[in-house]
């Protein structure tokens, strides 16, 4: 079983914090792109005839910038070439694109069963400052439309530690989000990535972000508020009602297999990691010649696989299974990481519950400190 990630690199507006592979949609060969994406499904799956796809995630960019007809074409292609039979099927969506039900209806009618909506904040001032084009009223309309069409499994994203964001402001967004009574929420602190508008502002000294202490308060507030609302934290940034955890995202954190389709997409098939050409034309060209558009393949040495088992697995609140580690790699975890585990437990960042290693409450806040420790020293 494997996941399938499908990348739609088009946007109508570029958000100031986003460093994903994306371009302005205007003037782009979108129809061609969709055709070639479907061609990629066909070529890649032919190489793995026995593989089954149990989750699909269409992300971006902005997948909902596609027209209803393009969406229809894409999903038809998915059903035609991906050996998928009805597992979790998520589409990322922008509130602007859900102001009527046209696109929602296409998604719903073709088996999409989960929506992840990029809300980020309920403060219109902040939305403007981070380059989002929607406003909070649009969010309510979008969710209303989604419910009307019949979507129940909906997640929204919130970002904290935004420029000039106060604790009170984030709390307000948090409460408004929870009041929507959705089954799933993601919330994460702003990361400054290179090649973003924010990064450039930061280098010019023009970006004023809340301090690390404020950021920690915001994160604590999110954990507490979601928990009080019956949403369990199952990953560092993710909260869900029972039964609504994102199966697709868990694939990444459990270090399991997934295909990556589309420009700049990453795939991981056990030992092989590969990624596709990012620029649209470079992605399309090889496909026209019936070649997969992979720019780089990397066979992960055992050490890297082990490191990732830990630094991804520990992101989940379930943690990493010591038995599973031994089954998967044929090495006892104790042999590879005995000292590190003891050290991290002594620091109070890690705990062991029977077969499971997990982050403590403090550890959740300082995950990178723990993850680094699990990088083996040959690096």
């Amino acid at each position: 079983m494997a996941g399938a990630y499908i990348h739609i690199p088009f946007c109508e507006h570029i958000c100031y914090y986003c460093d994903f592979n994306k371009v302005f949609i205007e003037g782009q060969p979108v129809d061609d792109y969709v055709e070639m994406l479907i061609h990629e499904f066909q070529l890649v799956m032919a190489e793995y005839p026995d593989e089954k796809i149990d989750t699909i995630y269409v992300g971006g960019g902005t997948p909902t910038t596609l027209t209803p007809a393009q969406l229809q074409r894409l999903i038809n292609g998915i059903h035609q070439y991906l050996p998928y039979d009805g597992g979790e099927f998520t589409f990322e969506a922008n509130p602007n694109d859900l102001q009527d039900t046209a696109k929602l209806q296409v998604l719903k009618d073709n088996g999409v069963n989960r929506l992840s909506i990029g809300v980020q904040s309920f403060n219109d001032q902040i939305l403007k400052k981070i380059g989002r084009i929607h406003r909070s009223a649009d969010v309510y309309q979008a969710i209303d439309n989604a419910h009307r069409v019949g979507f129940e499994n909906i997640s929204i994203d919130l970002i904290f530690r935004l420029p000039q964001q106060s604790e009170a402001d984030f709390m307000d967004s948090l409460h408004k989000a929870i009041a929507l009574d959705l089954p799933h929420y993601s919330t994460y602190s702003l990361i400054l990535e290179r090649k973003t508008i924010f990064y450039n502002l930061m280098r010019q000294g023009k970006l004023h972000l809340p301090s690390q202490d404020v950021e920690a308060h915001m994160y604590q507030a999110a954990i507490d508020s979601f928990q009080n609302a019956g949403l369990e934290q199952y990953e560092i940034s993710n909260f869900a009602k029972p039964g609504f955890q994102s199966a697709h995202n868990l694939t990444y954190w459990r270090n399991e297999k997934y295909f990556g389709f589309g420009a700049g997409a990453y795939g991981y098939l056990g030992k092989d990691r590969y990624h596709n050409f990012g620029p649209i034309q470079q992605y399309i060209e090889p496909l026209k010649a019936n070649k997969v558009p992979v720019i780089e393949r990397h066979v992960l040495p055992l050490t890297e696989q082990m490191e990732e088992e830990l630094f991804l697995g520990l992101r989940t609140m379930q943690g990493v299974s010591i038995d599973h580690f031994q089954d998967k790699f044929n090495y006892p975890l104790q042999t590879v990481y005995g000292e590190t585990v003891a050290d991290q437990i002594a620091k109070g960042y890690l705990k062991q519950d029977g077969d499971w290693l997990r982050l403590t409450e403090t550890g959740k806040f300082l995950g990178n400190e723990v993850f680094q420790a699990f990088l083996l020293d040959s690096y």
Partner: protein
Amino acid sequence: MDYAEMLDRQKHIRNFSIIAHIDHGKSTLADRILEMTDTIAKRDMQAQVLDDMELERERGITIKLNAVELHYQAQDGETYIFHLIDTPGHVDFSYEVSRSLAACEGALLVVDAAQGVEAQTLANVYLAIDDDLEIVPVINKIDLPSAQPDVVKAEIEEMIGLDASEAVLASAKSGIGIEEILEKLVTDVPAPTGDLKAPLKALIFDSIYDSYRGVVLNVRVFDGMVKVGDKIRLMNNGKEFEVTEVGVMSPKAVKRDFLMVGDVGYITASIKTIQDTRVGDTVTLADNPAAKALDGYRHIQPMVYSGMYPVDNAKFNDLREALEKLQLNDAALEFEPESSQALGFGFRCGFLGLLHMDVVQERLEREFNLDLIMTAPSVDYHVDLTDGTEVVIDNPSEMPETSNISEVKEPYVKASIMVPNDYVGAVMELAQRKRGEFVTMDYLDTYRVNVIYNMPLSEIIFDFFDDLKSNTKGYASFDYEVTGYRPSDLVKMDILLNGESVDALSFIVHRDFAFERGKAIVSKLKETIPRQQFEVPIQAAIGNKVIARSTVKAFRKNVLAKCYGGDITRKRKLLEKQKAGKKRMKSVGSVEVPQEAFMSILKMNDEDTKGK
């Protein structure tokens, strides 16, 4: 070549160097001369040809001297052999200047037509005059709109006492006056005078280590000749080697059959041991040795000391080897092993000044791939103890207990600052703040002033030069000489991290400035030391008295928030980077301290010390 031909050749040799202030156009002039003499084809020309050290090009300065041979067909129809020995201009490297001057019979004095004679030029031209060199004045940049060649000529005559009436008016950038300069070298600079038949005497003015050929000696031959196969003797230690190659730099190495009187070139002789060769030593022949060595160089006393430690303690021996190799062609660098509680094993190194220290550090990091921690620089203090003895302290952490000290003396310098009169006020204000005592001030012409101060050397090595530049918009030039030791009310400032005194961070400060310096360094350290697992108190203390404190907060949150899309590689890189960053830090007790923290005291600017 027979004897008569050699004698004739000797008459056609001209050895010279170029004396100039930074930015007055020395490297450009050297480039032009190389072009004019077809030493370098135009297409191979890159700016600053002689500055081949990466660091030199980046900073636009000359650090190491370089010697190059060129051939010039003069207007008298004869071809002359020129040896251009390039020299550094910065005050820290005046030692290198005197080494190169010793190999020359003449020098071009290059003065900027708009800016006039600068303090450093003055110092170097006096060195040349002391060595009886023929000075050829060149007024450069005459095509600048602000050029005032007549004013500059008058300055040269008044300040240096040279006849400037025939000074060459040139623009190295535009190629004006270059030929006239070359002709002057032919007519004015004397040919070398040594005796071709006398036993070999060659002065080692520089040497480098080459992993294939061993030590390469750069020499100026004063008497006799040397060729491949000769057995040479180094007069300092009597060691003998067989010559495997001789040649000249043109500017790449070119093999020759021999080097003779007046030549400036290199010798290799399978010398494997770096310690065997010493700059300033005389090379002679084993079977026909010279009776007496040439006057070597005076031993140069370092002015500034700093501890150098490998970040990784296991690299101690690598650091030692690297220092030995650097010392080969940087005779002013001194080092001896020392240890620090905080930093482990390292070396106490002596430098000529801060720029020299910077350059050594960067060369060690670049050329030898070492990660280093340097402690804040210090000068040599003379400490009289209550028991009547005197100790010399170059490491603040070794300062004796206050109760055992009867008096501390520190080195003072006479600082001479040349500046347009508009900036005299700014200079005086700065000098006063650096504990300077006004001595005198002379008008050089209608608008330039030479201001003389007595100042503690320790104030100069900190940030005086930078401050001077910024307070005078870069118009001031500056030179100093050490005049002696004077008693001062000095105290040792200890820095405590997490309650523990860190020896590598302590420094000596005048009591009157202790409070503001302490406050400034504490706040600087707070910025430099990253958050850690626990709160880290930082304190500055004199004896048991804490005079400033601050706290680095414990870290609260450090976790990659978003981790989707399967791009694990980048997340991994970020984690690896964070981990590598930690490795570059030094664990001092339980506190991780980054390299820069140890230099914090140097990085305090005026704003910090004015106690904002």
